[in-house]
C-alpha cells in the first residue's frame, strides 16, 4: 500500500524485504508485547499451584525427564544462538545446519516434558497433580508452537536462499526459544523443588 512500493512482478515473501531501523524496532516491540501476553498464563498457573496445593511437591514426580529436557532445551537454544550468529554473517547454510540440530533438540525436549505430564505416575485427582499436569501441558503446547516456528524459519531460509534481505525471522525464533527456556526453567524449579 505504501506509495513507494515497487510495481515489479516480483512477489515478495517474509524475510525478502530489507528492514529499516524503525521496522526492526516495531517488530521487536510487538514481539515483546506478545511474550508478555504469553507469560501471563504461566504466571497464573504458578500462582494457582500455591493456591490449590501450597508448597507441596509429590515425592513420585519423575526427575530425570525434567533434567534431560532442560539440557535438551539448552542445547537447542545454543544452536539457535549459533543460527543467529550465522545470520549476522549471512551464512545461510550455517543457519540451516544449526537449525537442524536446534529442531531435533527441541523435539526431544517436547517429548521429555510430555513424559512426566502424561505417564500416569501422578494422580490427576490430587491437588498437586491437578496443577502439575496443566502447567506442564501448557509449556509443552507453547514449545510445540515454537517448534513449528523453528521449522518455518528453517524452511524459509532454505527455500528463499539468496533472496533473503533480512534475518529477523531467525533472530525472533531465537528470542522466543530463549523465552521458552526461561519459562520452562522457572516452571521446573517451582514444580519440582519449591
Amino acid at each position: 500500500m505504501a506509495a513507494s512500493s515497487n510495481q515489479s512482478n516480483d512477489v515478495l515473501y517474509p524475510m525478502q524485504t530489507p528492514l529499516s531501523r524503525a521496522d526492526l524496532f516495531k517488530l521487536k516491540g510487538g514481539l515483546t508485547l506478545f511474550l508478555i501476553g504469553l507469560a501471563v498464563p504461566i504466571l497464573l498457573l504458578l500462582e494457582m499451584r500455591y493456591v490449590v496445593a501450597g508448597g507441596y511437591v509429590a515425592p513420585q514426580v519423575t526427575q530425570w525427564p525434567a533434567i534431560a529436557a532442560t539440557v535438551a532445551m539448552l542445547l537447542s537454544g545454543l544452536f539457535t544462538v549459533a543460527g543467529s550468529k550465522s545470520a549476522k554473517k549471512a551464512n545461510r547454510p550455517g543457519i540451516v545446519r544449526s537449525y537442524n540440530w536446534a529442531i531435533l533438540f527441541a523435539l526431544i525436549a517436547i517429548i521429555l516434558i510430555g513424559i512426566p505430564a502424561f505417564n500416569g505416575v501422578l494422580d490427576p485427582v490430587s491437588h498437586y497433580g491437578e496443577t502439575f499436569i496443566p502447567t506442564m501441558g501448557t509449556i509443552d503446547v507453547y514449545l510445540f508452537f515454537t517448534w513449528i516456528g523453528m521449522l518455518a524459519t528453517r524452511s524459509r531460509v532454505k527455500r528463499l536462499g539468496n533472496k533473503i534481505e533480512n534475518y529477523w525471522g531467525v533472530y525472533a525464533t531465537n528470542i522466543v526459544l530463549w523465552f521458552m527456556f526461561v519459562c520452562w526453567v522457572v516452571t521446573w524449579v517451582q514444580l519440582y523443588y519449591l
Partner: protein
Amino acid sequence: MSDDLEKNQQPLVEREWSRREFLLGAGGLAVVGVGALFAKSPIANAFQSLRPQTTDQGHVRLYQGDFYFDPNHMQWRVGDQVTLHLMNQSPNRPHEMWIGRGFDTTPTEFGPIATGFHTDFWDGVHINILEAYHVSNWVTNNAIVTSQVSPHPWLVTGPGNGNFSPTLEPGGYVTWSFTVPNKPGRWMYGCFVQSYIHYDEGMRGTIDILPAKV
C-alpha cells in the same frame, strides 16, 4: 508475526469467484443451522415415526443421562419375559426410574409440581434382580422381589417408602427380569430425584403395553 510484507499489498487483480455459489452456500448453511437449533426435536420425531415401532423383548437397555432417558419410548407386550438393563451414564448425578400413571403433586410458589406417579406399574409384579452396581437405594413397594445378588444394604422392601424405583449412583447399573404384567395401555416412566426437577427437565418417557397375543 515475524516479517513485514506490507510493501507487497496492492489490490491487483480481480479474480472472481461465483457470487451465486457463495450466496447459495451461505444461505443453505444458515437454513441448516437454524433448523438444527430450533427444529431439532420435530425433525428427530419425524424420523423416528418413519421407523416402525418394534416390541421390546428379551434384553432391553435403558440409559439414563442428564436429564433424559435413552430411549424415551418403549413398547412391551403382556406376558413377554423382559430383562431390563438400566444404566446411569451421568458423571455426577444420581438417577432413578419409576413407571406409573397419573401424578401426585405438591403446591409451590410456582404452581403445583409433580412429585411422582400416582399408580405404580410394579404393584404385585414378580421381579428378579440379576445385577446391581453402585445402587444408592432400591425401593420395592408392592413388587415381589427375588434377588441373585446380595440385596444389602440398598434394598428397601415393603410398602410405605414410595413407588417402586431403583436409584443409581453415577456410573451405576442394575439388571432385573420380569414378566410383563397384564396392565395394557400407555404408561410413563420418569426420574423424580433432586426435588422432582429431573422429571420437569425432561427426564421421562412412555411405554406402550400391548395386550397379549392370542
